[in-house]
């Protein structure tokens, strides 16, 4: 078991390293370095940045040193929470992002839970009642879920909300709570708004999870230990729920682990369409305006969040599957 945990930690570390390298690359890519862009930006908004200040900034970010030194400097600053300045807003990146990151995770995790909640029962039902009408219906909905890109789904739902119910389906808060400080009422309001974006976000992974659960359960139902359980005198449905479902849970849990990165990246686009106050819209604006520190940081933090999420789901798998737990003793 220890081996498994260590292996997952090592994987998480390497993934984080990869994400940080890629995020840093994104920051470096546009022509000219950050300080030129910053100076130009400030000039445009009327305030002059003195040569001295520009040089200090360059030293602070080690812009004239070799790339990996710059990376090292950037990374060591980032570890201490200093992600550099967001040019457009003239404020530190962390302030600009504010609680958008937490909101991204709230939406993503809610979508993940929705995936679990819907995919598990449907997957089980359509395996046990194979080739029944509901099975075909669910499989077809599953295909629709996989086929429609989530941003299109968001567009269509928004359009229907607008055209037929004349209600704005987007956003995570009603207008009065948008900027209010966090309170129970605001939380409650958030909860009311969550289902639709979460459903849109989670539909693709739910469809995939249904297919995986159905396929694994169908395999397990044919195994001899199911016949043994029935031969003991256990009633039919208790046999199915206790044994094959429990075994099919393992592959199900591992795929959920890998759908978190998919959901988080999906949230970027869906938030844009539904104008959710997550990092999505911020990232797009930053990329288009080439506000590279803000963009790079968002990419870094979302990446880290998913690494943590994937690691947690690996631990969940550890708890579910005794074979991994007792593997090496």
């Amino acid at each position: 078991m220890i081996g498994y945990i260590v292996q997952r930690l090592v994987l998480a570390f390497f993934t984080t390293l990869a994400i940080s390298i890629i995020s840093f690359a994104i920051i470096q890519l546009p022509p000219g370095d950050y300080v030129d862009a910053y100076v130009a930006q400030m000039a445009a908004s009327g305030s002059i940045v003195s040569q001295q200040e520009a040089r200090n900034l360059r030293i602070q970010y080690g812009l004239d040193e070799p790339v990996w030194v710059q990376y090292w400097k950037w990374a060591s600053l980032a570890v201490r929470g200093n992600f550099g300045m967001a040019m457009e807003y003239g404020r530190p990146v962390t302030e600009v992002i504010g609680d958008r990151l937490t909101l991204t995770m709230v939406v993503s995790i809610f979508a993940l839970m929705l995936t679990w909640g819907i995919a598990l029962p449907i997957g089980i039902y359509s395996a046990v009642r194979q080739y029944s009408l509901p099975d075909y219906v669910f499989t077809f909905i599953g295909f629709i879920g996989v086929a429609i890109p989530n941003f299109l789904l968001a567009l269509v739902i928004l359009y229907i909300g607008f055209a037929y119910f004349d209600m704005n389906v987007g956003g995570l808060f009603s207008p009065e709570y948008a900027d209010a400080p966090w309170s129970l009422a605001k939380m409650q309001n958030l909860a009311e708004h969550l289902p639709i974006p979460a459903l849109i976000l989670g539909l693709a992974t739910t469809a995939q999870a249904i297919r995986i659960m159905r396929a694994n359960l169908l395999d397990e139902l044919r195994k001899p230990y199911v016949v043994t359980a029935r031969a003991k005198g256990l009633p039919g449905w208790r046999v199915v729920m206790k044994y094959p479902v429990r075994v099919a849970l393992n592959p199900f849990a591992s795929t959920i682990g890998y759908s978190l990165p998919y959901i988080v990246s999906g949230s970027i686009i869906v938030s844009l369409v539904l104008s959710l106050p997550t990092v999505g819209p911020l990232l797009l604006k930053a990329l288009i305006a080439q506000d590279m520190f803000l963009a790079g940081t968002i990419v870094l933090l979302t990446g880290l969040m998913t690494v943590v999420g994937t690691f947690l789901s690996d631990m969940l798998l550890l708890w579910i599957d005794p074979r991994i737990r007792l593997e090496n003793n």
Partner: protein
Amino acid sequence: MDQAPPFLSVRDLKTYFYPDEGIVRAVDGVTFDIRRGATLGIVGESGCGKSVTARSILRIVESPGRIVGGSIVLRQDITRPDPDVQAALDGRAEIDLTQVSPEGREMRSVRGAVVSLVFQEPMSSFSPVHTVGNQIIEAIRLHRNVSKREARDRAIELLRRVGIPRAEQRVDEYTFQLSGGLRQRAMIAMALSCDPLLLIADEPTTALDVTTQAQILDLLQELQDQNGMAIMLITHNLGVIAEMADDVAVMYLGRVVEQGPVDDIFHAPKHPYTRALLESIPSIHSVPRVKLPTITGSIPHPYNRPKGCPFHPRCVSYMRGVCERDIPALSTIGRQQVSCYLYENTSVAAAGE
């Protein structure tokens, strides 16, 4: 040994499978009795329907299979009444298990308490994600209302009785931590948890090494001597049959072609298939490096079943115009019954058509 009255008798059992490609007559008219303390050996090659017969008795035939004919009658042995049989009969003298609902109360009290099952594949007949103890305790508490504590002690005692060392520690282990032999012993322990009258062993030792197989066969023998339970031993290994069975039923393509006491079957086989089978197995007593007599051809595909006697295309004593007309009835010669036209006219057809 006086013949105890059979508590379970199967009469002309027919279990067919209906996949979309056509009908597979897996069990096509099987008749035998199960007596307390006696071991019935069912022998046959692959596809002869021996496993389907076992599952039909427990009414756990998977779709697209269904019992379409015959009866499986369970009787109470008044001399030594059994509480579980009483619960299943619920006042009636006997019940036909093919008529009750597979998920009904009667079947649920029969499965595991009156008739229990042991499998060929020790590795996959236990759930890989539940401990051995958990699965045995569940089997106990299904039929006996005892506390979890009592059930756990009974489970440990059962594991010890089937010869598993350090039972109190092994009860909390998972099957992937046990060897093949130990897993099969745990399987037998679970099957005995509610003192069944009949233990169906479907190829119990095929996946085991010869020394472990000897241990398991001896264990089954001991348990039978101790609690007088009946054993239905299904296997393709004639040596195991000779060693364990009191009576033998030889099956081919879903039908019992010959049955009788083990001595008569081995030393005076009547049906050409039984004779050919006995002659074609290499035995440690036969003269080495000499050509074995063989049965020509191979087992036909279930969809192109030969008409009449299913064995006639491969039979040495095939009589043209007789054997391929229809299925020969079961005729009785001494203590043996055989379904073959060679004996058709010698004695009155005892049962069947």
